[in-house]
C-alpha cells in the first residue's frame, strides 16, 4: 500500500499503530477455525444475524463469492451464472452445500437491498447474501483470498475478483474457480473438490 493509494482511500490522515494481539500460529487445519475465518457477525438478506465461522462455515461445504448490487455488470453475470449452479446443485443446496455471496459494499447493500437483489434472481434457501461491518467484511475478503496483490487494483472495486471459493471446511480442502466459467465446467470443478454424497 503506497501513500498515494492511502490518500485515494481517504485514510492517510488517521493512522494508528496496530500490533497483532499475539503471534500467529501456523495454518494447520486444527488451528484455522474461528481464529482464521473469524466470527464476524454478518446479516443475511433474510435479516438473520450469524457468526461467520460458527454459524456459516464450521463443518460445512461452501461456495463463496463477493458481489455488490451497484456493480450490475460483472456481478450480475456472476450471480446469473451461479443461479445456474444453484439449479445444477439441486437438493444438495442447503443440505450438503451452502452458498454465500458477500457484499463488497456493506454500507449500501443493506439486508433489504440484498433481499430485493436475491428475489430478482430467484435465490433459493441455502444461498445467502451477506452484509456486515465494512472492516470485518474486508478482513473476510482478504482471508478468503479475494484481495489483489496490487494495492491500486485492489482499491478499484470494479476490478474485484469474479472468483468462486470452493471448499470443505471440515477437510480444510479449498480451491478457487472463475465464477464466470461455463456452468457445466464450473459444476465439474465444484464436484471435484466437494463430490456429491455417495460418489
Amino acid at each position, binding site marked *: 500500500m503506497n501513500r498515494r493509494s492511502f490518500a485515494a482511500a481517504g*485514510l492517510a490522515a488517521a493512522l494508528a499503530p496496530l500490533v497483532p494481539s499475539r503471534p500467529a500460529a501456523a495454518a494447520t487445519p486444527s488451528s484455522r477455525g474461528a481464529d482464521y475465518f473469524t466470527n464476524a457477525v454478518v446479516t443475511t438478506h433474510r435479516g438473520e444475524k450469524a457468526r461467520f465461522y460458527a454459524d456459516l462455515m464450521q463443518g460445512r461445504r461452501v461456495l463463496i463469492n463477493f458481489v455488490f448490487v451497484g456493480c450490475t455488470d460483472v456481478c450480475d453475470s456472476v450471480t446469473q451464472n451461479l443461479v445456474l449452479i444453484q439449479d445444477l446443485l439441486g437438493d444438495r443446496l442447503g443440505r450438503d452445500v451452502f452458498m454465500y455471496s458477500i457484499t463488497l459494499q456493506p454500507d449500501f447493500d443493506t439486508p433489504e437491498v440484498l433481499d430485493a437483489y436475491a428475489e430478482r434472481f430467484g435465490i433459493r434457501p441455502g444461498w445467502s447474501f451477506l452484509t456486515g461491518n465494512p472492516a470485518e467484511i474486508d*478482513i473476510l475478503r482478504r482471508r478468503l483470498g479475494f484481495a489483489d*496483490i496490487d494495492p491500486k487494483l485492489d482499491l478499484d472495486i470494479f476490478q474485484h475478483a469474479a472468483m468462486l471459493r470452493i471448499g470443505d471446511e471440515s477437510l480444510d480442502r479449498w480451491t478457487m474457480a472463475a465464477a464466470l466459467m461455463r456452468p457445466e465446467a464450473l459444476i465439474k*470443478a465444484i464436484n471435484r473438490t466437494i463430490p456429491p454424497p455417495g460418489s
Partner: protein
Amino acid sequence: MPDWQDKLAEISQRNRQEIVHAKLSKREMLRLGLLTSSGTLALKLGLSARALAQSSGSGAPASPPTRPWVAPLPIIPIKQTVKNNNPYEMKEGPPDGTTPINGATRRINHQFCTATTDDHGGYTYGGRFAPVKFYETFMKPSSAKFHPDYSPTNFWGFDGIYPGPCYMAYYGEPILIRFHNNLPSKKSYKGFGIPEITTHLHNGHTPSESDGNPVNYINSSSDPNEINPKGFKDQHYPNVYAGFTSRGDNRGDPTEALSSLWYHDHHLDFTAQNVVKGMVGPYLLFDDRDTGDENTGLRLPSGEFDVPLMFGDFIFDKNCQMVYDLFNSDGILGDKFCVNGAIQPYFNVRNRRYRFRLYNHGPARWYEYALYDGKNYLPFWQISNDGNLLPKALQRTSVRLAVAERADIIIDFSKINTNRLYLVNRLEQTDGRGPNGNILSPGTPLMQINIDKSRTVPDPSFDFSKGTQVLRELPDPDFAKLMQRAAKAKTRTFRFDRTNGAWAVNGKLFDEDQVAARIDQESEEVWIIQNSSGGWRHPVHMHFEEHRILSRNGVATSASSPEYARKDVVPLNWNEEVKIFMRFRDMKGRYVTHCHNVMHEDSGMMFRWDIV
C-alpha cells in the same frame, strides 16, 4: 568466520524478512488497524492467509530456524525395474494394455503398445513401441527430516520419498510405469493436497493417454471405483525421438533428443498443492551421444559425478510441518530453500568435473544460479537448456531458471583454487509476481560445496576448457531458414492475462471440454505468446513437443543466447510478446499449455489443444 560468510547469513535472513514484509507491510497493517478500530473484531492472526502462514506478527521468519550447511546433500536414488523386469511381478497383476482416463471414469487402450493374451492366458507385449522395461511406483504418505534441526515432516512421495526416484531411461527402450495411488481416502483426508494423481512427464514426447493430462487423475486405492478398483494407472513412455512418423521409422530425429526431464503431479485445480506436497522427481534420458558413461559418446561426467539437484522452497510450521496457503492464488514462496529435500545442505565433491542438473520445481520461485567463492562468481559451462543439450557448451557465470525450467552445467572443481564455495540464487523475489528485477550480491546461499583438494582423482570426462565439441545439432541449424518456414506457418496468438482476479488465456479460463486449438498432426505453427497481465511474469510451458524461441518483442534470438536452443518453457516477462516455432508430430490426442507458476495454472491459466 570471514566477512563474506556473515554477509551470506545476513542475506539469507533478510530474504526471509522480505517475504514477511512484502505481504504484510506495516502500512497495510495500519490501514487495517484503522478499519478495525471502527469495528469490534479482534484481529488475531494477521490479515490474510499469507500473513498467517508467513508472519509471526513480529516480522520474524515463519519457519523454525535451521543452521546452514549441517545437512548433507541427499542423492536421489535410481529407480529399479520390477523384480527381474518381469511384468508378472507387478502388484495387481501384469499390465493389460489399457489405462484409465477422465478422472478414472473411462478406460482406453494405449496408442503405441498392446497386450495380447497368449495360449497360456498370459500377456505378450507388442505395438509400435512395446515396453521392454517395467516399473511400478507407490505414491504414499511418508515423513522425513528436511533438516537435522527439524523433527520429521509429513509429505506425499513417489515410493514415499521426496524427491521421487530418478529414472534412467534410454532411447530405443520403451518403458511402462505403473503408478499406484496409495494416498489416503479422499473422503476423509484432511489438509492441503488432493489424494488423486495424474503424473506428467515434463518435456516428454508422450502419447496423450500417458501424458498426465490434468483431467486424467486417478482415485486412491482407498477409494475404489468400477473403472479403477485397484487405484493404479499404467503410463507408457516410448522413449523415442520426435519425428518418427515423417521419417517412417521407429527411431525419430536424433537432434530432438531430450536429456533432463522430470515428473510431477498435474491434478486439475490441485497441481500446486500436490507439487508442494512432494510429488516430483527426475527422469533422465540417454542415447549414443549422451550415454551416461563418461568414457563414451560426448564423455559427459557420469555416475556419481552426474547429479540431479531439485530445488524447491517451503514454509514449515513450529512442528516442522509444511504450511500451504490455500487462499493464495498469486504464487506461494517459501523461506526455506531445499536441495533434493534438504534445507541448505552441504555437498562434498572430488577434485574433478561434475555435471549438475539444475531443476527448479517451484511452485512459484525463480532462480538465477551462480557459484560464489567469497569474492567472485566462478565460470562454469552450461550444456543444456530445459534439459536438452545445446549445440555447443556456453561459458557462463550464472544461469536463470523460471519455474519448471532446467539447465545442466559442468563445473570443473579441479580448476577452482579454493576448497569451499556456494551455490547462490541472485534473484530477488518477494511475491508470486515473479522476480522484481533486483540482482542480489552475493545472493541467497542454497548449497555449500566443499572440494576435497587432498587427492587427485581420475577424470575421463570431456574438458570444455581444452576444446569445443558439438553436443547436439539443432533440428533447424539454419536460423534464417527457420524464420522462412515460420513465415509460412499458421499463426495463433495466446494472451496470458488477468481478468477480475482470474488467471486467463485470451480472456478464457481453463475448461477441459473447450479446445482452444485443433492442430493437424505433422504440422508446423507459430505461436505468439503475449503477457498482458501487468507486473506479472509467467513461465509458460507446452506439453508434448519442444519449440524454438524466434523472437522476444520482435528481437530475434541471438545465436550466442542460451535460448538459442530447444525449449519447453518460455519465461514470459513483463509486457513481452514472444514468438515461438512449434511442431506437432507423431501422436494424436489432447494436451495442454499452461503457466508453470502452478498457482496460476490451478486458477485457470491453462488451455487445451488437440492434435487431430
